[in-house]
């Protein structure tokens, strides 16, 4: 078992508002740097004021983009101090990320439709 490092989102972002993709990216980079140093990450959601999926997609969702196996992430990334609603949102963001990376835009052509002249 790799040594555990506790990362607090509050400290990485510098406050309790966790909404932007840019701030999510900072968290993502901290996590991956810790992984490279062979650490297990305990990601703390303590002191959260606002949290939305746009932030989670960048912070956590992109971990599922292929660089790490799901089994590795299960073993090396744990979440603490997280409210039930936030955990539910996080789980949805992870499922959404897996689908996004498994099938990038593959089903979209079904939406290609007849367009009225005035909307061309």
């Amino acid at each position: 078992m790799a040594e555990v490092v506790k990362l607090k989102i509050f400290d990485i972002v510098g406050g309790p508002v966790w909404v932007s993709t840019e701030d999510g990216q900072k968290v993502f980079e901290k996590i991956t740097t810790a992984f490279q140093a062979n650490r297990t990450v305990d990601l703390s959601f303590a002191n959260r004021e606002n949290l939305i999926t746009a932030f989670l997609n960048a912070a956590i969702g992109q971990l599922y983009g292929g660089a790490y196996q799901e089994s590795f992430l299960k073993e090396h990334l744990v979440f603490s101090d997280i409210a039930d609603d936030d955990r539910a949102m996080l789980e949805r963001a992870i499922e959404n990320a897996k689908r996004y990376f498994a099938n990038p835009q593959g089903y979209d052509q079904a939406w290609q439709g007849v367009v009225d002249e005035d909307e061309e």
Partner: protein
Amino acid sequence: MGDVNSSMPGFSSLAELNAALDAYSFDTIDLSFARCTWFDANMSAPLGVVLARAVDNFNSVELKEFRPKVEEILSKNAFLAGFGFAKRSDIYGTTIPYRRFTTADDRYFAEYLNGHLRGKDLPRMTPALSARFRNSILELFVNAAMHSESRLGIFACGQYFPRKHRLDFCVADAGIGMRRKIYKELGLKMNSDRAIEWALQEGHTTRKGKVPGGLGLKLIREFIGLNKGRIQIVSDRGYWEFNANGETLARMDRGFPGTVINIEINTGDTCSYCLRGESRT
């Protein structure tokens, strides 16, 4: 300018106004509100988009001939302060004031929202419902900032209607709209009503690259469904509404110059206060 409610006719009349103002540049525009007997305060956000475009076209815009009630509504939420009217105090504390933000203002926007939705006279909500509402609005703001390409910024305004037990909040941008954005990023051509439908599907996003997207609107829709509230999305000519009675998808005669999302929560529905993680008391 006639009456403007949070409804398809209300959005249509703002789209008509936009089309009329598009004919002017380097001009002085006197906009009469003499025929307007009611204006839903949250609709100040899309009105802000229309007037900002007119000003951006080097026009000078003057608003006049208000009926007292309408002037009071638009003064209390600070909309008219940008047009030389004095701000009036909001003694009942039912207003979340009109503001215009840049697309980079996410933290400032969060501060505005967190501050105003803790107002003493706004409806008492459980912490979970209040957080879900605030975060839904933040999601709308970040979506608009990320996708709309709105050079003129993002416009926001909210209003609590105590008698109806409804709290409305509207986020509007002056961007390219969903239909054009989907075509630009993905090459998919569709009518503007269908473009809204596309954007509402879980996993659908115009994002490309390493960061996934396409979840925010879906979660907001689920939340509003639980709450028995309402969402309206207007983008270009597309109009979509979801409420307790079902969904409406339609096309307006004129296009709105951007995207508007109005979300309304039902503050009188005590069941929906019991979100996950909370027990009913």
